[in-house]
């Protein structure tokens, strides 16, 4: 598994899987940081329809296009199914927020089906201030 860096996010589009209205502040800060860095972000949540401050897509058929890179913030128990779904829809690289989202089994699955996977908070790459410090200690190249 590779360490994340800006190179991981090839292209200029990211699929944000698990954009949640319950973790509004966190999700919107990630969305803002990615957007600020010039990426077009497609937030997705297949459970909730309302309560969002941005257009959130419910499924792959709704998406205008499926980006090659996905950032995944779902519950650990749903991660494996999500990986399979992402693969089916043409996603090539997945960044998982942390090891609670993606355990070793999920990472092995990614390897088996040919998905490049990484684990880490995207704010280390896109954020500023304290996030830079976090990135420094985690050895993340920005």
């Amino acid at each position: 598994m590779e360490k994340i860096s800006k190179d991981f996010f090839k292209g200029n589009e990211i699929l944000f899987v698990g954009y949640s209205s319950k973790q509004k502040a966190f999700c919107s800060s990630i969305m803002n940081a990615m957007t600020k860095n010039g990426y077009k972000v497609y937030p997705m949540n297949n459970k909730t329809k309302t309560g969002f401050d941005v257009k959130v897509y419910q499924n792959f058929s709704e998406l205008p296009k499926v980006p090659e890179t996905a950032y995944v913030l779902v519950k650990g128990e749903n991660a494996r199914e999500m990986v399979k779904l992402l693969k089916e829809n043409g996603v090539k690289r997945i960044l998982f927020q942390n090891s609670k989202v993606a355990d070793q089994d999920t990472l092995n699955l990614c390897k088996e089906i040919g998905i490049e996977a990484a684990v880490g908070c995207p704010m280390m790459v896109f954020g500023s201030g304290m996030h830079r410090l976090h990135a420094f200690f985690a050895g993340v190249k920005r």
Partner: protein
Amino acid sequence: MNTYPLIRTRWSNEHLLAVLFFAVSLYQLPDWVASPVSILKYVLLVAAALVLDVVINYIRYQRPVCAVSAAVTAAVLYPAVKGLPGWAGLLGIAAALIVGKHIWGGTGKNIFNPAATAMFFLSLAFPLELRLFEPSYWLLPALVLSFPFIAVRPFPGVGLIAGMAAALFFTGGLNLTAVLAYGILFWGCVVITDPATATDNPYAGLLGGFATGVVTMYFDHSLMVLSLAILLFNAASFAVARHFCSSRQGVFEGIRLKAPAGIKAAAAEMIDLTEKGEYMETGLDSLGPQQILERIRRNGVFGMGGAGFSTADKIRTVLQADTETKYLIINGMECDPGLVHDKWLMENKQREITIGIEALRRCVSFKRTCLIAKKTEGLQLPSFVEVVEMPDRYPYGAEKLFVSKLTEVNVPAGSNPAQQGILVLNVQTVYAVYEAVCLDKKADTRFMTVLDLISCSSRVVRVKLGERLHEIIGKTVGDKGMVFAGGGLMQAHAADEQEVVSKTTNCLAAGMLPRYKESTQCIGCGLCSRCCPAGINVRKNAELIDHGKLQAAKEAVLRCMSCGSCSYVCLAGRNLSGRMLDAKQACKSEAE
């Protein structure tokens, strides 16, 4: 998708409480100077409070929540427990946070002041004196810093200070040493002013605060009496809020909004993205009132201030209104802090606007014609147009607010100004009237403000209805950030890729998502209700909506003008206006 203001206050409850914690901590300065070791005891008590609060909040919300309010509680409680054994201090913290706060539902939901609750319980077991502070010049920083907090609930604060001082005066004990030793400013500025537990009703606050102060100082200088009196005052405040709710008194004077610098100064050049056609100007003299009205109808002129209603229908309603006096009010207020296009029109299209007004006056015989604006300098309109300058406050451009100020007419609920013989039109609509009548031009274009919230600049752009919003952004400010659209900076939503310019799109912005952190820590500051032009108890109704009690909130929800002020000021970062709008739409679709 939610609607929200794209700008909001920089302050939050956490900021406010952190400053308060610092101010209250400074009351220990005399002790710390005399014995630096005492700092340790203070730190331990605050740490215990933080840990307990974090744990309880984690159990309640399943995630970490800022515990600065617990630190404030510990700081307020400390003077009472500093002379007691450590375990008594910890007991006090437990009583304050569990009995005083969390059994009621957590921060902002408690009826009783947590520190006063703990003081009362502790004073049952220990004889606690009211002389908690060492009179010293070292108290000066604390006094200075805590004084501004009286503004949170000024009436109970002033009442308590006056009550304590009056009782001391009549018992012959009023002097500076007593004021400092009894902590009169401490109780009056930072304890009784707790917004969650003190009424914002001026009379009840003043009277309750005064009684609390007098009872304590006149009858018994003990902490037990003071804490009990504060708790009784808290109970009375709760009863007042329930039965005689009055979140705002007097006339609403709007709020001052801070837009990002640079936005108000629009680029002088207007960007025209429409196709120019060839039009011949027809003089008004060759047209009769019926022909004018017919041209307005045929060319589909609509309200360009945000409502999008048919202007011809509005004029007809005014003509049919059973009123002796008819008014024409032209709204050039543009009170939303992000809009600049009406100002541009008034500066650059005065001739056309004047002809538009003249055309309207030929359809209806108005007794009075007014134009309202924030700045009237440089406006050269004919003498029959009364130019009225209004304060630069929000939402002064809302019909309901200025109609009653300009005319003596009170528009009853369920009616509208047109039904009362008052024709209110936006400046841009008057310009469209000119084009429809004199140029026989369809109202299929509009002026709008396009904002670049990243580099803080604005442009006036003329666009065709139906043009894709993302394309306009690309052509004017360039693709950057997210795209938002709506009535202005205060009422916007994230625009969909395919969304197009509609009759109600006044503003387009490229920028980042505003940070609505939707904190659970509402401290009950009441700012949302105080800033509501419709006089709604916003906090209470937002809570009803959150709990799915739509029927109970219906009356308030239908009165909401969707101005966004409550979301702008909310210190807990809650998008209250978004909730109200969602609920309004739900109520309306229920009725259909």
